């Protein structure tokens, strides 16, 4: 396992205790902890350069604009975008997907057109399409998951049919950890002239990714899931797609001219950034990307792969424990959902919390997937670069305690 243990000291929160125990944070799929460099970048911004960006002819505003646009360049570079105009700052993955749904979907879909999703999507990649389908008369169709928890490609050619205009899928499930078949699906989409939208909330933070090679049209991700501040994220889009997309928020900064009755838009990416942006957030996200780049995304991936291997092994040895997720480590990331006997996931979370172990319990904003799994909720442990095998051990020990409390043996 790539030993990244020395990184833990960069994360102040990992020093705290919970219920008298060392904090064992296993909920990075929900949001990640922040290294000192990110916290300090925000702090430094407010103490030295805070001003509104653009249209400012004074030093502070120039500094703030540079900090903001430099962050854009860094984040664009991090995902392999050669043109930083293709990177729109958003509040998170959810906002990014909604922008595409409303901004591109609304004016490209008509009655009877098809939007294809998969059976493992997060609500963020379902609800916006339902809303847009309702507005346009388009229909939704799903690529289901198979018994290996992977998106089934059996009916790819019939599901992605000639009426299909948009295919939207996750790069990695936040429930099962399964990678989405982005390459196969986007090829099918291209062959019928449809665009591909990737929900990369779990993909961008955990492995090297290069949008220039992916062959997709849009890709949305969240800054707060990759060491960055809350309220940040990015939407990458191919230049021509962004240019044919309508803005979904109107206001300052996104305009070229405003008349009483008509307005014209600024060039991309500003067209999609109405109003004062989350400047300190972007600066913090830039620092997060610096941190990740220094560690190296291949290191992050191999660390998590090894930790997932260890986690699956150890959890599989816990009696009455079932894991919902692919066995193939090359086809999954560091998210492990499980059931433990008849102990409800919320009870698991409460019991683990007493031992300082933080896991998430619930439907993980993926109710349709939960229905396929046949469970209303799971408990979920998810890893990041700061986790260690000892964290897995603490989890396993606490699960044994849960079995005891529930009198299961």
């Amino acid at each position: 396992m790539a030993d990244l243990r020395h990184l833990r000291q960069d994360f102040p929160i990992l020093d705290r205790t919970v219920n008298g125990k060392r904090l064992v944070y296993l909920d990075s799929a929900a949001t990640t902890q922040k290294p000192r460099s990110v916290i300090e970048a925000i702090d430094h911004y407010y103490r030295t350069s805070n001003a509104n960006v653009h249209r400012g002819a004074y030093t502070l505003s120039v500094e703030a604009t540079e900090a903001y646009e430099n962050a854009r360049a860094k984040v664009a570079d991090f995902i392999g975008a050669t043109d930083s105009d293709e990177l729109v700052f958003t509040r998170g993955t959810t906002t990014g997907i909604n922008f595409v749904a409303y901004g591109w979907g609304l004016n490209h879909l008509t009655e009877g057109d098809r939007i294809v999703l998969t059976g493992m999507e997060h609500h963020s990649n379902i609800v916006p399409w339902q809303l847009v389908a309702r507005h346009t008369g388009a229909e939704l169709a799903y690529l289901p998951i198979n018994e290996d928890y992977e998106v089934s490609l059996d009916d790819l050619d019939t599901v992605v049919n000639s009426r299909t205009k948009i295919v939207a899928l996750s790069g990695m499930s936040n429930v099962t950890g399964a990678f989405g078949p982005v390459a196969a699906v986007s090829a099918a989409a291209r062959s019928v002239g449809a665009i591909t939208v990737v929900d990369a909330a779990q993909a961008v933070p955990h492995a090297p990714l290069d949008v220039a090679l992916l062959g997709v049209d849009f890709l949305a991700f969240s800054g707060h899931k990759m060491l960055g501040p809350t309220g940040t994220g990015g939407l990458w889009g191919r230049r021509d797609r962004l240019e044919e997309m309508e803005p979904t928020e109107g206001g300052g900064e996104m305009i070229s001219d405003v008349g009483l009755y008509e307005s014209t838009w600024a060039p991309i990416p500003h067209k999609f950034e109405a109003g004062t942006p989350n400047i300190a957030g972007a600066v913090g996200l830039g620092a997060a990307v610096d941190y990740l780049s220094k560690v190296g995304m291949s290191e992050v991936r191999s660390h998590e792969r090894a930790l997932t291997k260890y986690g699956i092994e150890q959890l599989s040895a816990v009696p009455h424990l079932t894991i919902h997720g692919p066995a193939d480590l090359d086809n999954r990331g560091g998210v492990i959902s499980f059931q433990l006997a008849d102990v409800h996931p919320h009870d698991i979370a409460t019991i683990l919390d007493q031992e300082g172990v933080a896991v998430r319990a619930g439907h993980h904003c993926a109710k349709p997937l939960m229905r396929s799994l046949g469970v209303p909720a799971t408990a979920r442990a998810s890893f990041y670069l700061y986790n260690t095998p000892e964290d897995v051990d603490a989890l396993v020990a606490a699960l044994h305690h849960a079995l005891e409390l529930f009198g299961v043996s």
Partner: protein
Amino acid sequence: MSLEELYREVILDHYRNPRRRDALAAPTAHAEGHNPLCGDEITIDVAVSDGTLTEIAVSGQGCSISQASASMMAEAVTGKTLEEVDTLTGQFKSMMGIGDGADPIDPERPGATLGDLEALQGVKKFPVRIKCADLGWTTLEEALSSD
């Protein structure tokens, strides 16, 4: 805050063997409750006649606390007058530290008024789980007010 205090045997028993699950032949009211924070669900049918809750059927899914609380509640309210149910609901909420406090209980001896339901008092020390314990009761209130 001890987990042993939370997961009392009587709670696990109600969780695993929930009472009053059978559908009613002639319900007079119905409500569905949902805890958006955790996804727990409770569905309630009641039959009320002459101001008395004569029968109740509970179904749902969720954590041991929400399901056990609803099950114990179902036992406790059956055969009571609506006024008594109302008082009991108030007393339960008092024990949880929520509600309007109009129906206080003796904090030293909750069992004196609440019987088995006393087992749920450990929940109070786990604030996130209070909504779970309360879900059945809130759903019952809704069913009775929709009547």
